[in-house]
């Protein structure tokens, strides 16, 4: 069984009349094992390949190879299926018309699936909502259900053959049921559209600028998924009666706002989905508003717990101690300060690129300048180097920048997809 531990980083001291408590809670998982092999139930993997006409021969061939390599990285015994998607969704493998729509991986099924993939041809449009809905039905077709469900989704274009509402409905239908890591190849897809899918489905989004990288990316995605031996963990946050959650966000490895994704466990506890876990660390920023107490009082501001099923596996305590000692109360915890900056960094990059896209150069310059400043201050080298391809930096310290005249679309999309990645302040 996996072991979870937690650590809380905060300044517990509040000044007289202070109400707002901020803390970073680090949750660490070790001994996670492999997907589907920890006795908690079977794992299922679906590889969804965009086979729309726009893929063309080169991208289609690269995608076929990448999908096959993804299959090679699925552990034997894992349930799997391959879906081909254009304006419709097709079950490419297993070739069954009824019953269980997924089979266990072994050398025979792997070879058959590779063969099925080899027949893919690029034609038709794009309707990603239907792809997601088919995945949900396939996962649900396994008798007894699967404990862990994961999809790798590849696309190259906009969701032309569905309305935004249709896609939103499909996302709402599937959210919480399985996880999706989404990758866009080329520059004709919409980062916001794919990010919406990945965020709701507790996965990641990234651009594959060069089709030649596709196989490497798919192999890594599948290996990462297979290393997640803890199927479905949830973050539970208890706050005292009368208190209020200002926000809850994951801040490492990426920024994801969880505030409005909670479901109540009881009157004082909300549960936030975190998906499957490998051996890894994740940081959460919890901000709670309390009724002020008198100096000298101490109280608990939040219990931050990680639960799998009904088992609480670890708990971090966020505290509040009111003090008249300004040496204690004036300090801002370095972890809290760092991740507050990283969350703002993600926001200003996205807002800056959105402003640039609609021709609002003044806003874009201000926002991206602030992003340069934040990335430099926090030592976020990846963000700094990606920003450098979109703006000319006059003074990183003050955030003085000029928008580049000619920007490669790939660089702009890479900056956008990477905007939520954060650096850690510790080791």
């Amino acid at each position, binding site marked *: 069984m996996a*072991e*979870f*531990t*937690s650590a809380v980083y905060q300044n517990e001291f509040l000044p007289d009349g202070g109400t707002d408590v901020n803390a970073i809670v680090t949750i660490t998982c070790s001994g996670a094992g492999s997907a589907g092999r920890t006795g*908690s*139930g079977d794992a299922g993997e679906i590889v969804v390949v965009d086979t729309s006409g726009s893929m063309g021969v080169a991208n289609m061939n690269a995608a076929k190879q990448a999908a096959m390599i993804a299959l090679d990285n699925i552990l034997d015994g894992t349930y799997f299926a391959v879906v*081909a998607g254009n304006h*419709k*969704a*097709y*079950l*490419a493998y*297993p*070739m*069954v*018309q*009824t*019953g*269980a*729509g997924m*089979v*266990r991986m072994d050398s*025979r*099924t792997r070879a*058959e699936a590779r*063969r*099925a993939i080899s*027949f*893919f*041809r690029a034609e038709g449009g794009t309707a990603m909502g239907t792809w997601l809905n*088919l995945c949900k*039905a*396939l996962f649900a*077709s396994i008798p*007894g259900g699967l*404990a862990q469900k994961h999809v790798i989704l590849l696309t190259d274009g906009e969701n032309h053959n569905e309305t935004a509402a249709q896609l939103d409905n499909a996302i709402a239908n599937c959210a919480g049921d399985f996880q999706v890591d989404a990758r866009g190849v080329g520059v004709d897809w919409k980062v916001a559209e794919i990010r919406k899918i990945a965020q709701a489905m507790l996965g990641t989004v990234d651009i594959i600028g060069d089709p030649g990288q596709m196989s490497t990316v798919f192999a890594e995605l599948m290996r990462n998924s297979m290393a997640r031996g803890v199927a479905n963990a949830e973050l539970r946050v208890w*706050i*005292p*009666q*009368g208190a209020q959650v200002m926000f809850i966000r994951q801040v490492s490895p990426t920024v994801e706002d969880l505030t409005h994704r909670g479901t109540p466990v009881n009157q*004082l506890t909300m549960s936030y989905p975190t998906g499957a876990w490998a051996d890894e660390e994740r940081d959460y920023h919890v901000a709670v508003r309390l009724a002020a107490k*008198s*100096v*000298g*009082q*101490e*109280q*608990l*501001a939040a*219990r931050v*717990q990680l639960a799998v099923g009904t*088992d*609480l*596996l*670890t*708990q971090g*305590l966020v505290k509040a*101690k*009111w*003090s008249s000692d300004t040496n204690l109360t004036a300090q801002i915890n370095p972890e809290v300060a760092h991740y507050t900056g990283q969350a703002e960094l993600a926001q200003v990059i996205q807002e800056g690129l959105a402003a640039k896209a609609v021709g609002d150069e003044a806003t874009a310059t201000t926002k991206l300048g602030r992003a340069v400043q934040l990335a430099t201050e926090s030592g976020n080298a990846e963000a700094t180097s990606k920003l450098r391809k979109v703006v000319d930096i006059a003074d990183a310290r003050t955030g003085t920048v000029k928008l580049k005249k000619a920007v490669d679309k790939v660089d702009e999309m890479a900056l956008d997809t990477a905007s939520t990645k954060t650096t850690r302040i510790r080791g």
Partner: protein
Amino acid sequence: MTEPEWPLLPAPDPAEPTAAAVPTPEVAAPEVADAPVGPTCPSCGRPIDPAAWFCEACGSPLVPTAPTPAAPAPGPDAPSAQTRRLGVRASEQARCSACGGTIGSDGYCQTCGAKAPSPRDHFSASPADWVGGVCDRGVQHYRNEDALALWADGDRAVLVVCDGVSTSVDSDVAALAGAERARDVLAGRAALGQDASDEVLAQALAEAVAQANQAVIGTTAADSTNAASATFAAAVVVGNRVHYANLGDSRVYLLGPAQRLLLSLDDSMAQAFIAEGMPRAEAEALPRAHAITKWLGRDAVDTTPRTGVQEVTGPGWVLVCSDGLWNYASGPDELAAQLDAALATTSDPVAAAQLLVEWANAQGGHDNVTVALARVPAPTDGATGAPGTAVSLGAAAGPDEAAGPEEKESPTHG
């Protein structure tokens, strides 16, 4: 039961070998090759632990066919408090004094989050009916770093107060360890039948300070960059003699109608100014008045206590306290007035100490408050000093500190 009808990918070209030509695998039944040898769940067919009450896969209830394996004894690798499974039996659940909710195993209310008072926040001790004390968190500090340790037998008593320095780490643990170690050393040397001469007890006090220092250092983490530290004040009562020692600014008073004395002398900035002629009230109001110049702990420079002995000439009380009390009544006359007010309603030393603590908290409770009291002269054969014979301090008759106790340096640090 409705089966989904899967939308199969259309065959690419009739001329090419079609996907349908690939034999369709049988997928309906679970693979036989993987069939487990052990017991399986009657509901879902997956392997189960013979001792399990529920199937791990589908959750169906099971009847165990093997006894539950005994939990392994906790070893060095046992989970820490941080990672241990949470949850507490109903019988162990306490009620929150603030809202009536249940106190969780983490020590906080499950409803309002109030911190459950820890036994460390407020405790009292009463080893005999003529000796008692109270140690309290006060109002403004969130932790009680004061410590109290008492002992009494026959006509002999030991009173020790330590005040952990709040800027150091774990000083609450260190102060209590130090006070209790000193109490044990002194109780051993002052026990009935032992030679309780002035020389022996002066030596015992010096040894108690050295041992308390070791206890404080013993609670300090090796890598602590802010070593725990504490003050020290102790009184040993033997019949009508009071032996005392102190380091830092915790104090020993002798308060009675005949004698009103501050026996101890602070090791503090304020005292340094008083020694140079500044009036006490003015010196104790200085911003750095409370900076102490001697303390117990790993970073202590000088742990030589100031020791002394005072003969008791009439009925009264020995009072040992932390600055949480004397901050509000420093001079012996002022403090005697507060003690007298407490004794007007009770003759019990614990109850009187509690009243003094409450009085200090009513003045603001800016610091932890500790008060230890022993009625003097000590009862002989446990017959004197019976409850009800409260000693009123009456009008001030005795001289103030000017009368001065005999003072001497510890013999071990000549």
